Structure formats: structure tokens, C-alpha cells
């Protein structure tokens, strides 16, 4: 009796540490401590489940130990070795594995235990959400890692196919919940859910990736919460719901940053329709050289870097920081403008720049950056595109019209570091490239920055 109470208290402490840890995670000063607290909470919870004497059975601790050692070793090694630029992929994979775990638990539960309708609904829900989180996250990983391109997995009329699939999924869900269906049908449902997760993420890509990653994160949380109901475990319930809530908030924030509804994102990104590429063919973009651009940077008073996904792809963050240091040493005021959806996951640019030791106060958010831009001499755009597209402000026919963007054209000069003239994810030509203030500097972001750096140093 006393022992049982101790286990219950352990779960309670675990839940409190989750809440407290998340609270500390939302402030820069205490975030690391928050993460540690949540990890301690997890350890206490796992210890509690290992010695909870209400669980009848044969223990099978060898199996448990095997799984724990294997998982912990892999997780630890991967976490230590992974490059910071690969962080979005990593978060997706970890998230997908959590979903897979939920799916496995619910399939075992559904196929071995006879449940009442309520139990079946919860288990089927955990199965569905877990599967979608698993295959969805894996596809997100493949896309982020550049192994799969959007066009390879998107079919014609993909939205209609997805809606059709969803109807079948929900139909089977209802049927399975109402009847004592065979295991064959259950397996069919499993396969269907896995396929739906893949198909659900397939048409979403590029700039919409931050939204979908946070959404999948919240799905995994919900599946853990549902599993908490199955196993009658409050710690799982609380932990799962907290993650569901945080994922939902991030999803909403990302959607707001793009001024689009979640529904709009889910039905397949920016439509290529609208005022795309109008008159772009007869326009000529001005180019500049490393020498000219470096002179412009060297003799200016304030410079603002606008990083985007191209920075991550080229792994140019350290070179950028070096250029920043060199310019600062010559009395140039350097700042960074961070758009909320720059990159491929929420806060992506912040992580990259932190890795390069860029001080936190130099990073300006959207509003501060737009306030500072009119008094900025030179803006250097490093691999960003749609977040600096003037069409969002002045072209009502454009599909990104209304999305808050960085008004870089308010500055005196704009230098765009870019590999080619190809349009960004949205598939919309960017009039900024033809703007009178803009000069293009073609090449890989890292090479371009390094050539600028060596020219600046020679001045």
C-alpha cells in the first residue's frame, strides 16, 4: 500500500516537473534548466513504471532492459553527432519514432485485449494519430534532407485524393469502433493510416514545413495522451497533452506569421496561380561583383543580414559571423533580421546563428527589423526569398499577398546572395530581384560570403 502511494507520488512529481520544465523552457535564461527538469521528470516517471507493483505479469525485465539500452544508446549517439544544420531533420525523426511507439502500443492493445467501445475509440485514435505522425514525420525528414522533392510525391489532384482517403479512414475508424472486427481488418486500417500520413504531408513543402513539423509534434503528443488513457496513467496523459498544446501553439504562430489559415496550408501550399512571374521575362536583374559588394559593405554604417533556408543549405552561418566580426571591427553596425518562418522549422535561423556564436541582441524580429530597415545602408539577403517578396505588400493578385514580410526595399541598398534566378518555394517570381536598389550576387552562399570576406579584409 505504502509502496503504491510512493509510485503515485513519483508520477505526480514527474508531471509537475514536465509543467515546470516547459515553463522554464519558454524563457531564454532558464531554458536549459527547464530541459533538465523535464528530463528528470521523465526519469522519475520511467522508474515509477518499472517498479509499480499494481502491474500483474511476469515482469520480463530482460526485454525492457534490452529496449531501453538499445534506444538510449542510439538516441545519445545520434544527438551528440548530429550537425546543427541537420536539426529540422533530427526533430522530425525523433518525433516520428514517438508516433511509431504509440501506433505499436495501440495495435497490440487492439489485437490482444477485448475492449469496450470507449476503449476501442481511444486505441483507434492513438493508432491513427500515431501512424500519421510516424509516416508524416518520416516523409518530412526525407524532404528536409533533400532525399525527396515535393514534385516526386505529389500527384495531380492530391487534395481531392487526401480528402477521399480521410473519409475512408474515418469510415473504417467508425466501423472498427462499433464492431468486433477481425485482425485482418485491423491490419488494413493500420496500413491505410500509415499511407494517409504519407499522403497528408506529401503536398506540403518548402516554406510550409515549419507548420507541418509543429503540427506533427502536436499529433505525437495527442497520441501519447490517448495511450495514457488506455494504460490509465496520468503522467502519460499530462505529458501528452502538454506536448499537444505546445505543438498547437507553435502551429498557430507559424500560420499567423504567414497570414494563412491552417486549412490553407494543409490543402497544399501556395497555388502557383495568381500574378506569378508577370513580365519577368523581359526584366534584367543587375549583378554585382565581390569587389563592388565588399566596398559597399565596408563603407556603410549599418548592415542588416537576412538569412533564409539557403544559409542552412550552404552551412554558411560561421562564414557569415566572420564577415560580421570583420565589418564590426571596422565600425559597421551589423544586425540580423529574422523572419518567423525563415528556414524549415520554427526558430531555425536562431539555432544556426547561435551555433555560430552570434549574440542574441543582434537578432531582430520582424517588427523591429522593419522599423530599423529605413535607416539601414545595406541589406544582404542570404538564401531567403519569399519572406522578402514585395508582392506580399503591393500585388493583390499574388498568392502570398498579405503575408507579413521584411520590407528590405526600405533600405538604401540590397544585395541578394543567391544560387540562381529560380523562384522560391512559392513558385512566384520575386520583383525584389529587379528592384532599382537591388544587386544580385550569384553563387553558393558560403562561397559568396567567403569571397566578400576576403575582399573586405583586403580593403
Amino acid at each position: 500500500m505504502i509502496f503504491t502511494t510512493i509510485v503515485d507520488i513519483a508520477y505526480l512529481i514527474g508531471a509537475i516537473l514536465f509543467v515546470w520544465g516547459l515553463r522554464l523552457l519558454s524563457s531564454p535564461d532558464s531554458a536549459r534548466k527547464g530541459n533538465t527538469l523535464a528530463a528528470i521528470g521523465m526519469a522519475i516517471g520511467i522508474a515509477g513504471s518499472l517498479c509499480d507493483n499494481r502491474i500483474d505479469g511476469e515482469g520480463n525485465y530482460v526485454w525492457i532492459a534490452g529496449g531501453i539500452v538499445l534506444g538510449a544508446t542510439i538516441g545519445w549517439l545520434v544527438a551528440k553527432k548530429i550537425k546543427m544544420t541537420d536539426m529540422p531533420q533530427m526533430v522530425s525523426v525523433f518525433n516520428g519514432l514517438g508516433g511509431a511507439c504509440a501506433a505499436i502500443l495501440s495495435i497490440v492493445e487492439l489485437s490482444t485485449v477485448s475492449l469496450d467501445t470507449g476503449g476501442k475509440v481511444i486505441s483507434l485514435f492513438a493508432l491513427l494519430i500515431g501512424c500519421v505522425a510516424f509516416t508524416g514525420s518520416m516523409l518530412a525528414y526525407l524532404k528536409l534532407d533533400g532525399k525527396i522533392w515535393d514534385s516526386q510525391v505529389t500527384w495531380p489532384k492530391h487534395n481531392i485524393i487526401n480528402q477521399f482517403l480521410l473519409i475512408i479512414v474515418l469510415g473504417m475508424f467508425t466501423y472498427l469502433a462499433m464492431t468486433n472486427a477481425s485482425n485482418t481488418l485491423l491490419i488494413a486500417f493500420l496500413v491505410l493510416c500509415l499511407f494517409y500520413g504519407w499522403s497528408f504531408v506529401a503536398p506540403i513543402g518548402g516554406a510550409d514545413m515549419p507548420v507541418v513539423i509543429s503540427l506533427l509534434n502536436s499529433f505525437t503528443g495527442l497520441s501519447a495522451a490517448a495511450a495514457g488513457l488506455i494504460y490509465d496513467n496520468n503522467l502519460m496523459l499530462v505529458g501528452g497533452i502538454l506536448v499537444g498544446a505546445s505543438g498547437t501553439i507553435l502551429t498557430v504562430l507559424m500560420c499567423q506569421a504567414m497570414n494563412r489559415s491552417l486549412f490553407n496550408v494543409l490543402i497544399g501550399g501556395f497555388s502557383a496561380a495568381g500574378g506569378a512571374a508577370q513580365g519577368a521575362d523581359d526584366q534584367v536583374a543587375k549583378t554585382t561583383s565581390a569587389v563592388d559588394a565588399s566596398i559597399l559593405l565596408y563603407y556603410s554604417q549599418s548592415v542588416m543580414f537576412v538569412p533564409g533556408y539557403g544559409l542552412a543549405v550552404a552551412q554558411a552561418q560561421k562564414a557569415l559571423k566572420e564577415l560580421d566580426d570583420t565589418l564590426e571591427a571596422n565600425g559597421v553596425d551589423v544586425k540580423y533580421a529574422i523572419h518567423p518562418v525563415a528556414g524549415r522549422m520554427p526558430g531555425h535561423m536562431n539555432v544556426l546563428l547561435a551555433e555560430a556564436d552570434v549574440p542574441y541582441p543582434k537578432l531582430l524580429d520582424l517588427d523591429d527589423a522593419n522599423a530599423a530597415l529605413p535607416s539601414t545602408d545595406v541589406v544582404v539577403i542570404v538564401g531567403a526569398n519569399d519572406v522578402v517578396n514585395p508582392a506580399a505588400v503591393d500585388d493583390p493578385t499574388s498568392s502570398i499577398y498579405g503575408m507579413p514580410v521584411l520590407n528590405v526595399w526600405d533600405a538604401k541598398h540590397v544585395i541578394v546572395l543567391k544560387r540562381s534566378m529560380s523562384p522560391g518555394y512559392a513558385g512566384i517570381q520575386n520583383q525584389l530581384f529587379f528592384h532599382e536598389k537591388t544587386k544580385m550576387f550569384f553563387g553558393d552562399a558560403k562561397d559568396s560570403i567567403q569571397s566578400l570576406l576576403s575582399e573586405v579584409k583586403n580593403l
Partner: protein
Amino acid sequence: MTQFMQFISDNLLLIYLLIFTVILGFEVISKVPTVLHTPLMSGANAISGVIIIGAIILIRRSASDDYFSLILGAIAIALGMINVVGGFAVTDRMLEMFKKKKK
């Protein structure tokens, strides 16, 4: 309908817990600065690995010759553990970088 009402009365405390946790979750996280979006996401992601407790319970409950449950359960534990350990470790690595530049 009676069934539904019965369900509500039987699980009243649980329903309270659900609702208040949702509110608490939204409140705790609602004002997170952009710089912490990624660590928050990966930290929360690690917390979602709490599902591993379910896998532990599953294995402990199973008969020692029920290889279907044992094998799937052990896989679930391994996957959950990758999520937990990897998630917390990676978050810590990221936050360490944020810390360094504060001085």
C-alpha cells in the same frame, strides 16, 4: 444518452484533469520568444516520449511466452527511448549554444 451521462459522472475527475491540463499547457507556452521555438519544440518532443511508460507497462503485463507482445513492446521501448534520450540531449546541446553567447 444515459450511457454518455454515466460516462461523464464516472470519469469526472479525469475530465477535469484533461481540461485543466490543456488550459495549463496553453498558458505556460503561449508567450515563447522566436529564439526558443526550436528548443521548445524539440524539448516538448522529448516529453512526448513519455509514451515509453505505456510500452514498459505492456511488457511487464505480458506472459513471458507471448512473443508478439514482447517483441513489439521491446521495439516500442527502443523507439520511445530514442525519442526521449535523443530529444533531451539534442535540446540541451542547442540550449548550451544559446547560453555561451550571453556573456
